């Protein structure tokens, strides 16, 4: 099976986002990561036989997932404090030790 290589600029794409996207696609690809200067290189090796058309579709979906993961990280960073506050309110009177 042929390996597809994608490159992402680490100034734009956090490596966390790429790793989380790779995790979600682990049933379709095994992803190897390496870094060359500012570029994160992802080598995608399919885990099952797939047509070229199918492979292209999954690669496009992987790229979209990377963007979604970037957005998730933004939300998480902005809401971490208020999340902790809500959890604090929720469990402060629960009686749990």
């Amino acid at each position, binding site marked *: 099976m042929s390996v597809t290589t994608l490159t992402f600029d680490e100034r734009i794409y956090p490596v966390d986002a790429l790793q*989380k996207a790779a*995790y*979600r*696609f*682990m*049933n*379709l690809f095994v992803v190897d990561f390496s870094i060359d200067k500012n570029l994160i290189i992802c080598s995608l090796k399919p885990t099952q036989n797939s047509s070229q058309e199918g492979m292209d579709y999954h690669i496009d979906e992987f790229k*979209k997932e990377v963007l*979604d*993961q970037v*957005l*998730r990280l*933004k*939300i*998480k960073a*902005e*809401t971490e404090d*208020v*999340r902790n*506050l*809500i*959890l*604090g*309110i*929720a*469990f402060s*009177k*629960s*009686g*749990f030790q």
Partner: protein
Amino acid sequence: MSKFQPLASFLSSHHEYKLLPFKFEQLNDQDYVLTNLTGDYLSVPRAQLNRIVEHQVTPDEPIYSDLRSKHFIYEPNDIAPVELLGLKLRTKYSRLAEFTNLHIFVVTLRCDHSCPYCQVSRQSEDKAAFDMTPAMADKALDFVFKTPSKAIKIEFQGGEPLLNFEMVRYVVLEAEKRNAVTQRELAFVIATTLSLVTDDILSFCRDHNIVLSSSLDGPEELHNANRPRPNRNSHQKFVEGLNKARLALGFDNVSALMTTTEASLPMVNDIIDEYLRLGFRGIFLRPLSPYGFAIKTKKYRSYNTQRWLEFYKEGLNYIIELNRSGVKFSEHYTSLILTKMMTSTDPGYVDLMNPAGLGIAAIVFNYDGGVYASDESRMLAEMGDQTFLLGNVLVNTYEEVMLSDKLLDALEESFTLSVPMCSDCAFEPYCGAEPVYHHAIHKDFVAKKPESEFCNRNMSIFKHILGLMHSDKFTKQLFLEWSTRC
């Protein structure tokens, strides 16, 4: 003169908002679903999602008030959203303080049926070695009444519990005696095929408010093929038992569950029609579970998740159309999910719990005194896997069992808010940890979720339910009704 200030008075003077914690998943080609900490949801196009996160939505847009009222955003001076979310979250997890409501007594492993998919590795009818003894029952009852839960439900399972009805009778009377002192909300259920039900048994059930939970797989031919017994009359016995039991206990005090075999797959409408014909008001469309005889006879692998999902969707669609034509009927799994989606109430369904229901929602006392973390756990043990055997009532104390590493490790490791992928998943508030399933299939309490059929099946169901509500007003109203029934 209006009694209210104009809308502009309630909007932020700075046109600023902050995000509240939320997660999102792709729903279909156009839309994404957003869920907050407590499971409130909103469906938006991808471009809109980006605008929300980038703080570009303005108060004059209709989505703004939706985002604010459903607690996805708040304005700098708002205090209520944070407190309300905390309160709703506390309500959602309030069951944890009163852990272990359901206590399952496996009074015998003997059974008069020999179902090839049976999730319990049954024994034949004549082996008394597989019966619970009074000494074990007494110790199990000691255990039951140590639960902090105000409500205690004792469920009798087998095998066929009616083959050891003397033990059922013994446990009920002993439990009532103890409850005269502790005053809990005590309830009893017998899981039975109804094939051995007698007037004497029903009279005892009526006198002690015992309800019956039975099995109906569909029309006679399918039911008898799925559930073999001597004389091949399982369906006839079920119908006779059902009629007698309804007369004795009340119409709604007898319920039924179905299991999907390969033979069921092309027959979902016929199966639903059979439930309707027999007067049931709903059905639980259940896939096979990977335990017991279902694995030994390779029944579990006889169809895949995708095929079961087609079966479920076809059945759900048929049920919606029945309702549209005026026939009130519901699908129970969908109702459980809808309760989680639309209310702050956790319906307490063990498969869809986080932390998992292991030990803290249900616990099992096996016929041999073994204490298991769930019904599925003892099924695994009958296959030789004792991972979830927590102890034995004859030798272990309540504290030793409930604080055992075996139980606490499984609960902690599978906690979805710290599991890869689940912790970022928008459907996490609706889903469950299910460490027993994942251990059975993947030999790991968590498993890699992209490879998990449990994850795949439930994600597909969540998306399907949301899609149906999004596309049809009647279905949305119907699902709203179902959400408040659990």
